[in-house]
């Protein structure tokens, strides 16, 4: 992960002029117009073989899932010519030997051959072998067994394993995203795989649900619901569906974020008048007020080491990003660029804070260097999105290398993904009612109960 970040940092550094010095408000560097593409590794993934004559589609689906994951990592450039790969693979099968010269016309890097076969009753085995196209050497092999119907999970695991092996990076192929969608015209909480597959509705409140956040340690989600005619903060156990109130005070109980150890929540309450930041246990116990201003303080998020909290304050007259210690001490302003910065989120690497940022009349995803957050230096804003649409509500992937966000560039608000250099923008929801305020979370299998 550290190594991966260094790569991203180098790419960003290459793209940016030296930071401005002195008392100016800090510059805005628009990366959206001049994307730095990572150096990518070629790989051809023809449809997986199917023993037992299952429909051809399954073998092709497996290949496409692995290719999508590898492409999205930013490290690979999988071949997209499925027709060519299917026929080349067919010729290999007939002669029972791989024609590396032919595959070499597609890529000089890697070729992945996969197969699916029925194992025990209701079980399926996926085997993959990766070859170096240049010399025909087998460089990697792996196999996975799981329930038939778990094809996506196995393919995602396969992609993450290969990424780890080739570039030593923890991938996101098995992660998931919580977001707000619509059902019957009402906003409800939804969950999906990071690539937009497996969309499932979690709440049936038929009122208004807002601002989900996934626990990084336990299988839980945090959200605000108007179910009882007030915006109340709830935690929901995703394995059982059971929900527990965290805060139900009159007024706002909103924009919650779990602490890095998964045992506390930071959120905003307005029962004393204006919105302020509070912290409590995940059962709502030990409520403590962290901010004491007449202005709006909201949208808090924890630093990955648990020592700081970034949040939005409109003390300057317009919303800007601030940071304070986790005890509410030493609040300091972080952003000085533009008239509206909100919804901060802190990368798990600790290196970046991303947020929604009004630049040139549009909302875009901005990012600032969050290292040495205790010092007073002005930080430049790196603008990752652009164009005529809005992009808002960012959330980092668990490995800190990607962001999910909401954008209306397709005409309606939907959920998108991108890399930290602004490349690989990928729309993952196309829901009639839209997709809002996504929150990226860990793979379910890696969470405690």
């Amino acid at each position, binding site marked *: 992960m550290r190594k991966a970040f260094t790569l991203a940092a180098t790419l960003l550094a290459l793209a940016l002029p030296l930071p401005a010095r002195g008392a100016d408000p800090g510059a805005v560097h628009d990366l959206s117009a001049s994307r730095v593409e990572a150096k990518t590794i070629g790989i051809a993934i023809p449809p997986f073989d199917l023993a037992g004559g299952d429909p051809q589609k399954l073998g092709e689906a497996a290949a496409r899932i692995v290719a999508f994951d590898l492409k999205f990592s930013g490290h690979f450039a999988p071949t997209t010519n499925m027709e060519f790969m299917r026929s080349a693979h067919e010729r290999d099968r007939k002669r029972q030997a791989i024609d590396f010269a032919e595959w070499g016309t597609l890529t000089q890097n890697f070729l992945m051959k996969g197969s699916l076969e029925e194992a025990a009753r209701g079980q399926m085995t996926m085997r993959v072998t990766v070859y170096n196209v240049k010399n025909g050497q087998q460089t990697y092999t792996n196999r996975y067994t799981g329930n038939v119907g778990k094809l996506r999970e196995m393919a995602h695991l396969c992609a993450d394993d290969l990424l780890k092996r080739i570039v030593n990076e923890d991938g996101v192929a098995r992660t998931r995203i919580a977001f707000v969608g619509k059902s019957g015209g009402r906003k409800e909480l939804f969950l999906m795989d990071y690539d937009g597959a497996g969309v499932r509705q979690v709440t049936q409140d038929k009122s208004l649900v807002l601002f989900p956040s996934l626990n990084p340690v336990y299988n839980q989600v945090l959200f605000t619901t108007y179910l009882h005619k007030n915006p109340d903060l709830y935690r929901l156990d995703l394995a059982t569906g059971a929900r527990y109130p965290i805060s139900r005070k009159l007024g706002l109980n909103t924009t919650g974020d779990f602490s890095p150890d998964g045992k506390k929540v930071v959120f905003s309450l*307005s029962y004393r008048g204006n919105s302020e930041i509070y912290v409590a246990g995940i059962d709502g116990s030990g409520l403590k007020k962290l901010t004491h201003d007449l202005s709006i303080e909201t949208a808090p998020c924890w630093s990955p080491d648990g020592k700081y909290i970034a949040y939005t304050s409109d003390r300057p007259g317009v919303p800007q990003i601030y940071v304070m210690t986790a005890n509410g001490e030493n609040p300091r302003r972080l952003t000085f660029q533009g008239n509206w910065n909100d*919804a901060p989120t802190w990368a798990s690497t600790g290196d970046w804070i991303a947020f929604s940022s009004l630049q040139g009349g549009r909302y875009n995803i901005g990012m600032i260097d969050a290292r040495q957050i205790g010092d007073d230096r002005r930080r430049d804003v790196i603008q990752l999105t652009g164009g005529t649409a809005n992009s808002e509500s960012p959330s980092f992937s668990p490995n800190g290398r990607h962001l999910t966000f909401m954008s209306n560039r397709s005409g309606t608000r939907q959920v998108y993904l991108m890399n930290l250099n602004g490349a690989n923008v990928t729309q993952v929801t196309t829901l009639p009612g839209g997709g809002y305020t996504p929150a990226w979370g860990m793979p379910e299998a890696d969470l405690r109960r």
Partner: protein
Amino acid sequence: MILAQNKLFRVLVGAIALVGLTTLGACSSDGSKDAAGGAGGAGAAGSGADNPEGSVPGGMADASALVDVYFDFDKSEIRSDAREALAKNAEWLIANKSAQVQIEGHCDERGTEEYNLALGERRANAVKDYLASLGVESARLYTISYGEELPVDPGHTDEAWSKNRRAHFLVTAQ
């Protein structure tokens, strides 16, 4: 602010026109002395120029005698046109002593959902404080923010936005 001069002008004119209409409506129902609540509720709802459909179910009746008030972009100050409207609303609330009223704060779709929810709360609170300053017992007034979630006008124009930046009133008990 970012609002162009003529844009701001149009917003103000639009809001004043709206307030004018609804103020007229409120006057006539006041004049008929036909207790603005109860039966008046259903009758007035049909003719009301100001009948937002955004409200979430839960209120008992739409307080047709209570008119919406409007705000400038990213602001929660009570505008001069809103002061007139709130003076009328205060009259009704003082005349109907048992009415409990929910004040909903709303924002337009621009801006971020997170901050807008807090801004809606501040707008509702500003209205509550203003009504209290006119002699309405604040214990009868509840605030709730819906941020940008329940626009009256789903459009993406200056006109739609100016209508959506509002405080709306819902009589929850009478």
